[in-house]
């Protein structure tokens, strides 16, 4: 069982996303550590990309800030090494495929393994194209975490069966971002996915209030929150540790 799956053992998992290097890597390092202390069970680290087609404005702007501060995959790997000196919280990369291809699949996943990354989410790598990456992610022991969407229908089963680490259930149509209401019939997606998946199910996209987290945690194994955290970082910059920690604590407490 992977370290990621273990993180779901203590109950419902709170999964926190932030863009690495926003506003700089030193802040990211501090935030990962602080969020872990405040109740985050897994942290997703976004590798900033010039053209993140699955992101809404909040994370797009975070990517712009992170790239402006000179963030590169190699600098992120160095930061992960520093994090690993004091924290063993499971870490998952969220990245578009091109930076990984450019780095070289073999070299990238070897480096992930070396520094202590546990999993990877690639939003522009659907089930049909996963093989070219999976060959290398599995060779180096990195969980390849797939997504299912409200439109997946007949695809849910095969995607869920292929999932490693956890299955990322996209709550709504559209891009990432805060939503006041989740309208998708998550129950039916989750019941189909649960049957096929050998890993826990975590729901993301749009979740930002403790009420939403409480509701989702009743039907899923984990809750993923990104834009709401990134928004706090956008507001507070390098001194985000306190407000982010408070927010994470509040969300975690709301989950059963």
């Amino acid at each position, binding site marked *: 069982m992977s370290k990621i799956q273990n993180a779901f053992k203590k109950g419902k998992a709170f999964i926190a996303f932030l863009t690495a290097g926003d506003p700089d890597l030193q802040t990211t390092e501090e935030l990962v550590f602080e969020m872990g202390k405040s109740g985050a069970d897994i942290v997703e680290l976004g590798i900033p990309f010039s053209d993140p*087609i699955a992101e809404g404005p909040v994370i797009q702007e975070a990517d712009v800030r992170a790239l402006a501060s000179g963030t590169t995959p190699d600098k992120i790997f160095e930061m992960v090494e520093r994090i690993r000196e004091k924290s063993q919280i499971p870490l998952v990369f969220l990245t578009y495929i091109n930076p990984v291809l450019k*780095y070289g699949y073999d070299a990238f996943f070897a480096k992930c393994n070396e520094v202590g990354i546990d999993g990877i989410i690639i939003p*522009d790598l659907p089930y049909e194209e996963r093989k070219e990456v999976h060959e290398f992610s599995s060779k180096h022991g990195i969980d390849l975490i797939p997504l299912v969407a409200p439109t997946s229908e007949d695809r849910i089963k095969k995607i869920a069966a292929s999932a490693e680490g956890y299955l990322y259930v996209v709550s709504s149509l559209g891009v990432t971002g805060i939503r006041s209401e989740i309208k998708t019939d998550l129950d039916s997606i989750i019941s189909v996915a649960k049957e096929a998946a050998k890993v826990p199910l975590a729901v993301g996209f749009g979740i930002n209030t403790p009420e939403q987290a409480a509701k989702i945690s009743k039907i899923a194994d984990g809750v993923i929150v990104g834009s709401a955290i990134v928004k706090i970082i956008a507001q507070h910059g390098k001194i985000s540790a306190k407000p982010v920690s408070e927010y994470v604590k509040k969300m975690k407490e709301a989950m059963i």
Partner: protein
Amino acid sequence: MTTGRFGIHGGQYIPETLMNEIKHLEKAYLHYKEVKDFKSELAYLLNNYAGRPSLLYYAEKISRDLGGAKVYFKREDLNHTGSHKINNVLGQVLLAKKMGKTRVIAETGAGQHGVACATAAALLGMECEIFMGKEDTERQKLNVYRMELLGAKVNAVESGTQTLKDAVSETMREWVSRVADTHYVLGSVMGPHPFPMIVRDFQSVISREAKAQILEKEGKLPAAVIACVGGGSNAMGSFYHFIEDKSVKLIGCEAAGLGIETDKHAATIAKGAIGIFHGMKSYFCQNSEGQIAPVYSISAGLDYPGIGPEHAHLHDIGRAEYVPVTDEEAVLAFEYLARTEGIIAAIESSHAVAYAKKIVPNLPKTESVIICLSGRGDKDVASIAKYRGVNLHE
């Protein structure tokens, strides 16, 4: 290799939310392209609305002036809405309608594809929204108003470099948000499969006509077919039926902007590297970390950091050649064509004319070349004037 490949290129690298939709699109397209009613309806629109077949015009004065092979222009600029874009748009909007869609969305750079899409949507009774980089909406105000006249809503995209690549990204984001009633009319031979195939098929009418026309006029195949390449739809359409004729050189002209030795260009084959972006594996202008590079060209329609996957493959196997052409060369060709033949062609197409000027003098008079004039140049007059230091009032 997975479906929709051209050699190693192509594929379907898009968010899961869209996967069922593009599979549905592929199935619908493969079905309707064989259905007699669909084919005759599209042929009717192309012939009676868009003005096909387009002329293959023998440019006698230019041929004499260059002193080499005979120069023929495939006059896509004479199509309704002023460019080759209408060929693809009529096909896709008709297909979308058959699929039960009520709304179409599209990206546009210079506005040619957006205008064509808004036109087809008006004709076929579909709701239409166009995404255009904010910088482009300012450069091409006239086309924005034209699209609005046609009943489309135009969204100015403020993310990234505010140009064509950002318009594509934003249209994809819109499609992910609203897919049930909406078809994305992709404007070039790019994006995830099946788009490169669909757009190529709809544009291949260019080479189907051109081949018959040149055989009728010259009694033999041309020595070369030359077209400009951004994403590559007019070039793919111009090349397609000549691919099997190995004696015909296929030449794509990329935008070299201020020169490929500078960082102000959009020359994907000359300067790009293998990458995956906007749903496809192909060549892209990018930095050493895989970030997509901001590109530049005087031509908004060629101002794109990638190239369609079938072109990438034709390059890999050596069947087509891709050459860079600078702003300066394109502007000179724009002016030359206007003066010599009385044709104001799009600055995009002028890139192809510029390269033809270089090679035609070295080809024997017994040979011919076909240059695709993909669009008309009215939209470019103001920016050419500016390039020459003449400020026309807005």
